[in-house]
């Protein structure tokens, strides 16, 4: 976008809207300013390299990337089915998929415990057949985080699939392309920007997940203590570490989201 066009578009916007928008941005920027103001800059290097923080960074990356991958494997097909297949109860399935957005994450975590815990409806047979116990394990963290973050991918991609012009797919089919070819060569490229946006939202939500994680997977350094859990524990006892961890989270997510935006959203 060149500068001339940008000026033109600003001029069309009523002043009141600009003022409100500025207030909106301020609401997001002020907490960051507050965080920076309390940051113990001198000790920052030693704080962020402490074993608690390093362990938490590692676990958070594993959990957020793992959850995004799991969401891709399960969520993309789910979005496709919800968008393209008409079946009885589709509205109910769609509502169930969105449930994690509404439920307090702690409740979601407890519900996961009832279902997938060692004594849970599914968890008990799983345990007796395979010896796998999800709670208090890193896999448990990935499951909890996926539960909370996958809906972001499903709604974004489903919306894109429903809104896209399906005549391109029909045209490809008329020209003899098979289902997989159409999906790969026509559908996916057309919804690509939305998919990237969905992945970004999913990953960001996964990175910040707290309630379901601590309820379902517990809190143990090196095994289940992700960055948000480490912040929570540190906030009561060691505020400097808590602030340092928060800064890391801000830095990681800003970097990834800004890079994504430059790389993909603008390009398309």
């Amino acid at each position, binding site marked *: 976008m060149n500068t001339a066009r940008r000026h033109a578009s600003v001029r069309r916007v009523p002043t009141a809207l600009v003022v409100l928008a500025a207030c909106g941005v301020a609401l997001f920027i002020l907490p960051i300013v507050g965080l920076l103001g309390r940051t113990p800059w001198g000790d920052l290097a030693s704080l962020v390299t402490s074993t608690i923080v390093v362990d938490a960074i590692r676990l958070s990356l594993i959990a957020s990337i793992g959850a995004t991958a799991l969401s891709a494997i399960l969520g993309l097909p789910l979005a496709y089915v919800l968008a393209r297949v008409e079946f009885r109860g589709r509205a109910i399935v769609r509502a169930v998929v969105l449930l994690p957005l509404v439920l307090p994450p702690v409740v979601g975590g407890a519900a996961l*415990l009832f279902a997938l815990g*060692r004594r849970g409806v599914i968890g008990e047979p799983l345990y007796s057949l395979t010896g796998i116990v999800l*709670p*208090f394990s890193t896999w448990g963290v990935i499951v909890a985080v996926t539960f909370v973050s996958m809906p972001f991918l499903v709604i974004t991609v489903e919306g894109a699939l429903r809104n896209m012009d399906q005549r391109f797919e029909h045209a490809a089919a008329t020209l003899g392309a098979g289902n997989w070819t159409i999906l790969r060569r026509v559908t996916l490229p057309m919804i690509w920007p939305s998919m990237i946006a969905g992945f970004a939202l999913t990953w960001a939500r996964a990175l910040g997940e707290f309630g379901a994680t601590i309820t379902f997977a517990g*809190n143990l350094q090196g095994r289940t203590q992700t960055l948000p859990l480490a912040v929570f524990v540190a906030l*009561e*006892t060691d505020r400097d570490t808590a602030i340092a961890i928060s800064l890391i989270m801000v830095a990681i997510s800003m970097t990834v989201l800004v890079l994504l935006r430059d790389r993909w959203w603008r390009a398309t």
Partner: protein
Amino acid sequence: MRSGPYLWISVGATVALIATGCAATTSEEPTDVVVSAAASLSDAFSDIETAFESAHPEFDVLLNLAGSAALREQILEGAPADVFASANPEVMADVVEAGGVDGSPHVFAANTMVMAVPGGNPGGVIGLGDFEREALFVGLCAQSVPCGSLARQVLLDANVEPSVDTNEPDVRALLLKIGLAEIDLGMVYVTDAVAAASTVDAIPVPPQNAVSTLYPIARLVAAPNPDGGDAFIRFVVSDQGAEILEGHGFVIP
């Protein structure tokens, strides 16, 4: 500080309660006794409130329940209360030091740590040594909350190095998972174990390793209703009060 907003909400609530209470005294209504009590006393003190009010219909008890430290801040900030019951003698000492207490505080109850296991004890726990068993899922409260620091003190004194699987944010989260048998062994206040007795069994810590916290109670200098406050404290330390406290797992010193 985490207690910030709650503190001010409860200060506001207390002030509002006092205001309505004062207005009510002009008629034949009972006078209010405001009792600021530690959150761990919630169940026991609501039973005591009922018993006290039927023994003394001239008084109406209003319980103001929060963490001891938050209550201390309220009292030092001048929120009107008649009685302060703390779960921590040091917190009470702060109020005494600030000249807020009439006379000296009275220790009316003690709370001890117990091992908590799921109903039926599926892990076959028999003693503190079981905290070291890798095969068990062991949970404690996080170090930053009282049940976590006390549990670690018990284990440290007993020379036990627990193989902890999770540090739970508070005692309710820990008891939930013990009750669901997802955690095989934890350590909580006996009163919390009693409150969760339908799903959780308690195993006492051997007396030589027992650690307990004391609960002091005192009437405040600034009490709007000193007679009511004194009557409430007399009731708490009476046999009837002691019986109620014991029913909730407290030990009477």
